[in-house]
């Protein structure tokens, strides 16, 4: 019974801890599937967190907070798209700049909000009936709205990418934009759309932090989760379902580390924290060492700007 309680509490906490990383990672999967590497995730998360919190505090409305986050992160997605897709600037450099910019901007805008508590936050809403199931009920169905939305988004993203024409177009653009262009797919439109979508998800990841996870605004509150999300995308080999499992592992190790410490179990928390990255490096080595796998898994046109004239 004791073990069961520990397991239930750990899994429940792992889902919460995985949520912001998974939002950002799903967004990044879409962007990278279209051939655009967006390293600005961390910055967009922070701006999303600040905007969401600011709007929620001032309007006393969660919905408006989320809408503001979506709007601002879309704007950031548009800026990033314009620079990297239309002007064909380096995706790596632009992404890094966006992160630095977002970090600074959110700190600047957030100054007045430090120390404030939001009157409206995402509360846990146990799902009727389902939350009464032993063990699983508490683990899966005693969360806030944004977690439930994520439950739908993961299979939906998988379905869109692998089972629809839209997803086929998306993958084609990421693998071979020239061929996709020849088939009449608007490469630029596809990339714009998915980069902006991805940016929106990153913004939501930030709003989850400031309105649900640790409801407050604190400078640099994402504390590197945007970067973890980018690592997670590689870990998951650009697959939303694997990303969900990966996020649980990434989020779970921290939780498990604390649980072990609290119980006096002698596994070093530093080792636990290192584990996901170690696994990621191994995954990366395997997929790049076996060229056949790399061909199938990593979008081939990733980081390469598409230029019709250079076809």
């Amino acid at each position: 019974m004791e073990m069961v309680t520990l397991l239930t509490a750990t899994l429940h906490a792992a889902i919460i801890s995985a949520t912001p990383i998974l939002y950002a990672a799903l967004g990044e999967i879409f962007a990278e599937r279209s051939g655009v590497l967006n390293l600005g995730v961390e910055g967009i998360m922070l701006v999303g967190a600040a905007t969401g919190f600011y709007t929620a505090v001032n309007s006393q409305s969660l919905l408006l907070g989320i809408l503001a986050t979506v709007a601002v992160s879309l704007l950031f997605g548009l800026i990033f798209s314009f620079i990297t897709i239309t002007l064909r600037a380096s995706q790596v450099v632009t992404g890094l700049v966006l992160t630095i910019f977002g970090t600074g901007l959110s700190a600047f805008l957030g100054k007045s909000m430090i120390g404030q508590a939001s009157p409206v936050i995402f509360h846990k809403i146990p799902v009727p009936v389902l939350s009464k199931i032993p063990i699983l009920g508490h683990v899966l169905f005693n969360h806030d709205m944004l977690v439930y939305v994520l439950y739908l988004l993961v299979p939906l993203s998988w379905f869109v990418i692998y089972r629809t024409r839209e997803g086929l177009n998306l993958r084609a653009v990421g693998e071979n934009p020239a061929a996709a262009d020849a088939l009449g797919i608007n490469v630029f439109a596809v990339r714009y759309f998915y980069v902006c979508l991805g940016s929106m998800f990153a913004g939501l990841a930030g709003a989850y932090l400031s309105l649900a996870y640790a409801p407050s605004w604190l400078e640099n509150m994402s504390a590197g989760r945007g970067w973890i999300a980018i690592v997670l995308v590689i870990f998951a080999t650009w697959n939303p379902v694997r990303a969900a499992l990966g996020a649980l592992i990434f989020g779970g190790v921290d939780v498990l580390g604390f649980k072990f410490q609290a119980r006096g179990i002698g596994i070093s928390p530093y080792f636990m924290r290192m584990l996901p990255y170690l696994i990621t490096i191994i995954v990366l080595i395997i997929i790049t060492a076996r060229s056949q796998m790399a061909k199938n898994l990593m979008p081939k046109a990733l980081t390469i700007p598409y230029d019709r004239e250079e076809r």
Partner: protein
Amino acid sequence: MKTKRLFVVVAFLLIAITLFTAGCGSKQTSVPGNQNQGKDKLKVGFVFIGPVTDGGWNTSHNNGRLYLEKQLPYVETIFVQNVPAGSDSERVMRQLIQQGAKVIVATSFNYGDTVKKLAKEFPDIYFLHATGLEVAPNVSTYDIREYEGTYLTGMVAGKMTKTNIIGYVAANPIPCVVRAIDGFAMGVKAVNPNAKVKLLWTSTWYDPAKEKEAALSLADEKADVLAQYQDSPAVQQAAQERGIYSIGYHADMRHFAPQANLTSFTWNWGPIYVQEVKAYHDGNWKGKAIWASAKEGASTIAPLNDKLVPADVKKLIEETKDKLSKGELTVFKGPIKDNKGKTIVGEGQKISDAELVKCNWLLDNIEGKL
């Protein structure tokens, strides 16, 4: 084509850097204007490593600055916030000296190298370096005996727990953190010998989500009072979410969790600033190591939460606070054993300051490792 691309990247970089520095800035705006008014006043320059609104370390130093201005009417303060250590801090301190500051208060440990360098160049300027290690003829280091304040918060926790399990979320096992936790545990032990302190290390000073996770893990282990040595108020929020009690650190964290927060350990730098600036003004200053305590009112706690703390506990805390401020009570008084069974000091003995500085043991009622 290539040049166009390069141009765009460079242009965007420039825009971003400008905005970023603007974001970090308020360097110009934060310097109070009106130069004429303060002509005959003694100028004291403060340098902060983060925003003075952080609700923690920097806010506590800024409160000290405001206290100084209020207490000594002949003082005018100038301050610059968000100053990274290194060449930035050197530039800022030089600028402050040029503006006429006679006393420079460097409120972060990280400014050590800059202080050392500038102190040699400006022997007439008095430097105060927070938590610093090196004293010079014109450099004083200053710190607060935090363990006296945490002793009080530990007593509150020991009195308020019903499960006899108190959770402690802490950042990194360095001496000043360990000392604060030991002081806390001494306080717990003094009022409740049956209570245990469960200690979790997060290995981060600042990650609200992770701090909250650690706090919730402790709550799952039946802890009903949570304390912290972290910069964010996430532990307080976690306690409120679970309907248990919490104790803050750095500054009064009540407003983050009004239904959970019992009190907070607070740094009160004001008395040190007043004492040293006054000494400079009177001409009897010299570089020394200052370790202020409850006697000066430096190591203290935020007002107790009357809605949660019963009157008898409040009375007990007030009495102990009084004893501490009169120097009648020693926190680390033997016999003290650590949680591995080793004797730290024997019956009736005290721990010397030199030993406290390198504190690396956990009291026997703490469940946790270094």
